[in-house]
């Protein structure tokens, strides 16, 4: 597949270089085919595109602004621009994808959305889109995440979604994915599995990237208006599964911008993972010598995932994007620093990207005067309780 342009249509096999594919039980194969066909059809249908654009605009608050972080830029000696996904309805980029998939589910005649969630943002977004379109929602969430992100659990309840606690394994996102897949097998006739990141079997990694592409396309146009050079030197985003990064990168992959994905130190699949197969796709996976998948550890529930979207694995191998890690401590101080210099409370997940920028700018890894676009994937209200103890 190396003759393909990066970040284009991965074809019917869903391969990004060596990665991707459709490693699911036979029971799910027809559903995957059906979804792929429905998505190809919808994506080529101006009526569907219109409906999606309308909802993203009048409902979800797009386009999101590009905010120059003036005081922090001055401190760091760079020009830092923030793509404000935190200002979308429900408070993170997850809504972009979910509105798209929910419209698709409706078009396919499904009456229920299934979803896994880590930080709860994707679960809230799914519950939201379900309510909006009159669908049911069942959200699988690890018990540990339920404790860490109680606020989001309550939000889902108020929105009318059923939240199913997952007690297996590490009781975090990875196990919620397993459980959602199992449930999907059992209810594939009336349920649509609304995957929350650029992962899962084909067509999900591609489809979710396409639904998140709006971030990168808006940002690209905004940078063109804002920056003398039109394109920033760096484009930085955090990586859980990698959807906000993929959506952002998609807008800049054809430019000279350096693309940087930032993972949690304890969930660094792109930097410490080996090739493997998990949750329906082949990618880089954190695993032990025997091939057992390791638990990820991150202060950010949304990054507690031992894999990475297959396209990111490919972008890494290709060298088009690089991937870095930051520690929990760096993340918390980045969060507080942004709050106090710009009045923006970023999600712990998004603060990973910021922590890398701060470190790189302060260590000279980013040259002074550079321009940096950072996707602020979500707001930090959900994290306040967890960082309270760390302040």
């Amino acid at each position, binding site marked *: 597949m190396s003759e393909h342009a990066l970040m284009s249509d991965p074809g019917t096999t869903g391969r990004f270089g060596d990665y991707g594919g459709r490693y699911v039980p036979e029971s799910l194969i027809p559903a995957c085919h059906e979804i792929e066909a429905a998505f190809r059809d919808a994506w080529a249908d101006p009526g569907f595109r219109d409906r999606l654009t309308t909802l993203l605009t009048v409902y979800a608050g797009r386009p999101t602004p590009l905010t120059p972080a003036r005081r922090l830029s001055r401190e760091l000696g760079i020009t830092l621009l923030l793509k404000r996904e935190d200002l979308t309805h429900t408070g993170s980029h997850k809504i972009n994808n979910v509105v798209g998939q929910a419209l698709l589910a409706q078009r396919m005649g499904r009456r229920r959305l299934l979803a896994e969630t880590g930080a709860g943002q994707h679960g809230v977004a799914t519950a939201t889109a379900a309510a909006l379109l009159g669908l049911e929602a069942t959200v699988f969430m690890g018990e540990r995440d339920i404790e860490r992100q109680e606020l989001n659990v309550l939000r889902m309840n108020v929105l009318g979604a059923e939240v199913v606690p997952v007690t297996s394994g590490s009781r975090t996102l990875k196990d919620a994915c397993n459980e959602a897949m199992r449930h999907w097998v059992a209810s594939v006739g009336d349920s649509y599995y609304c995957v929350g990141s650029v992962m899962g079997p084909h067509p999900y990694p591609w489809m979710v990237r396409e639904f998140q592409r709006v971030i990168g396309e808006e940002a690209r146009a905004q940078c063109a208006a804002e920056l003398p050079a039109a394109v920033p030197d760096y484009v930085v985003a955090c990586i859980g599964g990698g959807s906000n990064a993929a959506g952002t990168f998609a807008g800049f992959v054809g430019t000279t911008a350096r693309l940087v994905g930032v993972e949690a130190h304890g969930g660094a699949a792109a930097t410490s993972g080996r090739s493997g197969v998990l*949750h329906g796709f082949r990618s880089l996976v954190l695993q032990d010598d025997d091939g057992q998948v390791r638990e990820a550890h991150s202060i950010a529930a949304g990054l507690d995932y031992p894999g990475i979207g297959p396209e990111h694995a490919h972008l890494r191998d290709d060298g088009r994007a690089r991937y870095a890690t930051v520690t929990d401590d760096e993340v918390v101080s980045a969060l507080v620093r942004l709050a106090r210099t710009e009045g923006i409370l970023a999600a712990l997940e998004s603060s990973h990207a910021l922590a890398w920028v701060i470190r790189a700018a302060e260590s000279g890894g980013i040259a002074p005067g550079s321009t940096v676009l950072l996707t602020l994937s979500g707001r930090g209200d959900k994290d306040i309780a967890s960082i309270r103890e760390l302040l």
Partner: protein
Amino acid sequence: MTLEEFLTARRDAGRALLVPYVTGGVAPGWTDVVRAYADAGADAVEIGLPFSDPMLDGVTIQEASDRAIAGGTTVTRILAELAALDVEVPLFAMTYSNLVFQKSAAAFCAALRASGLRGLIVPDSPLEEVGELAGAAAAEGLDLALMAAPSSSPERLREIAARSRGFVYAVTRMGTTGEDGGISAEAARLGRDLTALTDRPVLFGFGVSDPARAAELARHADGVVVASALMRRLLDGAGPRELGEYVASIRRALDRPLDREPDEQYAPLPRHRRRPDRQDPVGPLPRG
């Protein structure tokens, strides 16, 4: 003799096939369970190589896998223990893609072969992802069995039937492994469709929880795989003897002439059935 030859011969001898399952390394002495199964009338034994994220397994086999991994089991150790085991019936592995592709499919298959296994089944490597593995398995003389599901289209069923080796694993239901849930009409139909498509043995798996269900299902194909029902007992404390007895009870049920009225639509299969010539063009199957 290959797994397929072994099973086909027994099936053709008029026997309903019985394949019990055990998770490798689930407890010390787990190979005694394999032996007990063989002694109780198993026609083959399925050995689970435990994976941390068993997507297609219900709670029972998840728990067994977790227990095995927590106990320090690895694929290497399980294969070594199997190599040292001498039973009359063929053994084959069940595991997930991530373990298969650790080094390469070829290396994995070579290791299975070296330990005396005759085949494998990998639920998350469907037709579209199975090419490399199928080649590697064939090169080592292992039979790679494929799964068919109630949701599979006629075209896919034909391809699965054609490419599967050893037997075809017919998933009784849309769901994970586990004991709950009845046997659906779609399971019966799937069995009939597959047996019409292939001369290979067709075994039902998922939800074969007791002798009666096993016997009922076996009317619509060539036999059954029994997993969660056994592993639940094992996790609850049953030893090789009790597990062997349970397998024997299923064996008896399978061997007993049916006392119930045969289903109108799906009459019991004659053993020694005649298959359509595999070269024959096959038209689309009628679906219910």
